[in-house]
């Protein structure tokens, strides 16, 4: 099949970018979206042009490196799917496809479709951990955690940090990302002891990085490749309010 691609090209952080059109032929429906871009890049090399830069690594939907706006949707038309797991069978022959980087003030564009998501690392640094140094751990079965609690914690911990939640949010809010970590850790007995400080610090950091407010539109849940529930945002709010009221 054949596609008309309209791809965002930008030299560096400071440069102004713009959309460039490319006609790509010889696409098979079995290709993944990124393999389709590989195909285009191969052609660009032949023509002596600079390739389209995009982040990608595992290509199996778990590392969270890839992520782009495809036809105005984070990770493309499918819900709950990363860009690397999107296949060309989701597109029609002759279709025009817009490809842009995830956009947010906290995610500056480095080049083309590559963005800087270190803001997420900073949020985790502000408290997204259990302070358990190596060697301190008690016998693992001495902490009993009911099946449903573990499963709920896992649902939150499954976040791959791709940033689709921010990209699709009309306010570029990182609420789903931050709340998923808060929820993961507060659900488990190991993480409970630090919960009050953690939630305050992580929410403050989220603001500091320049993310917007959560308007509870729930768009993030739809685009999240791991289908992380916005109920976690409710839990983050609960923990935050509790900490405001009760923290000494």
């Amino acid at each position, binding site marked *: 099949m054949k596609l008309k691609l309209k791809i965002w090209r930008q030299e*560096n952080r400071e440069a102004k970018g713009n959309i460039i059109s490319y006609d790509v032929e010889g696409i*098979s429906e*079995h*290709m*993944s979206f990124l*393999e389709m871009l590989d*195909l285009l890049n*191969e052609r660009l*090399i*032949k023509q002596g042009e*600079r*390739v389209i*830069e995009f*982040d990608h*690594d*595992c*290509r*199996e*939907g*778990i*590392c*969270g*490196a890839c992520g782009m706006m495809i036809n105005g949707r984070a990770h493309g038309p499918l819900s709950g*799917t990363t860009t690397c*797991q999107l296949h060309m*069978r989701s597109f029609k022959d002759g279709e025009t496809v817009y490809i842009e980087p995830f956009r947010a003030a906290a995610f500056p564009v*480095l080049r083309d479709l*590559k963005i*800087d998501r*270190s803001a*997420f*690392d900073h949020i*985790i*640094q502000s408290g*997204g*951990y*259990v302070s*358990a*140094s*190596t*060697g*301190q*751990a008690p*016998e*693992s*079965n001495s902490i009993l*955690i*009911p*099946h449903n609690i*573990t499963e709920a*914690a*896992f649902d939150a*911990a*499954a976040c*791959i*940090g791709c940033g689709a939640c921010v990209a699709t949010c009309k306010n570029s809010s990182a609420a789903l990302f931050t709340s998923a970590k808060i929820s*993961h*850790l507060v659900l*488990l007995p*190991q993480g409970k002891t630090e919960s009050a400080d953690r939630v305050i610090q992580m929410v403050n950091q989220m603001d500091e990085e320049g993310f917007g407010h959560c308007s509870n539109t729930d768009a993030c849940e739809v685009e999240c490749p791991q289908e992380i529930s916005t109920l976690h945002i409710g839990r983050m709010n609960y923990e935050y309010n509790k900490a405001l009221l009760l923290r000494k």
Partner: protein
Amino acid sequence: MIDAKIPAGNLADKWSNYKDRSKLINPANRKKLDIIVVGTGLAGSSCAASLAEQGYNVKTFCFQDSARRAHSVAAQGGVNAAKNYKNDGDSVYRMFYDTIKGGDFRSREANVYRLAECSLALIDQAVAQGVPFAREYAGYLSNRSFGGVQVSRTFYARGQTGQQLLIGAYQALMRQESLGKVKTYTRHEMLDLVLVDGKAKGIIARNLETGEIERHAANAVVLATGGYGKVYYLSTLAMGCNTSAIWRAHKKGALMSGVSWIQFHPTCLPQIGETQSKLTLMSESLRNDGRIWVPKKAGDERVPNEIPEEERDYYLERRYPTFGNLSPRDISSRAAKERIDAGCGLGPMKNAVCLDFSKALKEQGRDKIEEKYGNLFRMYEKINGIDAYKEPMLISPAAHFTMGGLWVDYELMTSIPGLFALGEANFSDHGANRLGANSLLQSCVDGYFIAPYTIPNYLSAELKAEKVTIDHPAFSESEQMIREQLDRFMNVQGHLSADHFHKTLGKLLYDKCGLSRTRESLEQAIIEIKALKKSFDHELKITGDQQVNSELEKAGRVADFLELGILMCYDALQREESCGAHFREEFQTADGEAVRNDEDFCYVSAWEWKGEDQPPELHKEPLVFETVELTVRSYK
């Protein structure tokens, strides 16, 4: 002859003996010592965090945009530990034995025993960090079984165990960063190791955003850069996985071992087209309930569901009745290849076998299967558009894990003093074949529990040594060399992309140094790779500039893969036996089982780089088995 420095004493006491006698560093002195950790996967993150917790200054480097994206994240199945929570006869010794036997008796007893011993603490550590391992309803940890063993010792977090363990280690790393003990350099690629007076004293790294070449000095360098299975291009690895860090260390004098021992994972999605970039892994845990078969008749054109029961060949159950579908990976992969080569393969390229859940679905019901493997079935449908609840999955072996890597001694130190290699980047614990769920274990154990003891033992002497700074001539020399290499890549201006060479090399190695090899195929491969390398030097084309440039990154990696490919073939050629993942067709029984030669090859091959166009030099580390008896590895 090289010495692994294995401590004295009974097998079970060696690690305790080592720890009791290793040198310590006073807490006040630790902050005077700098350590560089390259790679932030499980081994790198856990090691960096643990050393920072002790008080050392740590710098970490990764090419990804965040430490959390290292490829440990993709491990699905689980992590082994001899907790014996199932009361089914497990013990440290049994785990040790399974691993030694699984590795076809080509690993060190002492290392493997230590791996099993430390597995207990690892589960505790991970749980304390908040890793949500699967639990029973009462709250106790749950286990499942994996290929090559008869006990249930695998701890898991659905099909995302690697992700959860990595997030635990990543969070520990981020905590140390917030405390100022770790500085993480993301989007940085190590391009050279810097030696001063024969000791590892720093690295040259390239900032992948700005293109700047940076120098970083330290008292010790840790390489935890994972495996090089991506040498085959099509593999279960991430696109960025590479051999560059360890290869460049190798060229600086570090020995490499078990180079051609590469595990092909039996349950991956087959190649279906020429533009494919990745063979996605489907967790081995699927083999707990899935049955593997091919049609009895070669060239069967029917779709799987049309082939009646009596015309199906459940070849693993037939050949290995004791372990059946749970036979170890090397054996399962080879058996699949044997059937595919015999013309019984299915799928558009006739390169796949069936993994069939119909029996399990009938016996346990869809709900149960969905609970266990739901995410894998969903993934299968996403990639292939096929509902595996209705049709068998089509799977095929794919390059997956490299047992080989930098040679390390018992302390995980390479042959270069001050250079340590952890996790998949070293060769040490898995012998010629790795058992499922031992990889996560090894990288964690190396990083959390071994390196934090052995590195200080080395560093204790560093306290008195003069501090090397980045102004040392060795750094400028290295930097100069790297700049020249990058310019060379940019200036070739040929007509072929780096990917072209990578794909060509991959195909060549799959055919000639893959699941099975012969003297002839290997000799042929060496000639062909050398020719390919020549062509690479003259026909490579890179567009763009020296800032963000993924093609330039690829070129460096492919250049290293090409050289590594040659060493792989030398390694496979020299070892005239079949063991584990290394199957030389000349050395097999009449019914196609591997024939090991303990008489002549019971040693670790450690290869030394002798320069371009020179064959590598072989050093031998004899494997001494004091505890176990070498037996024919049979899963029949």
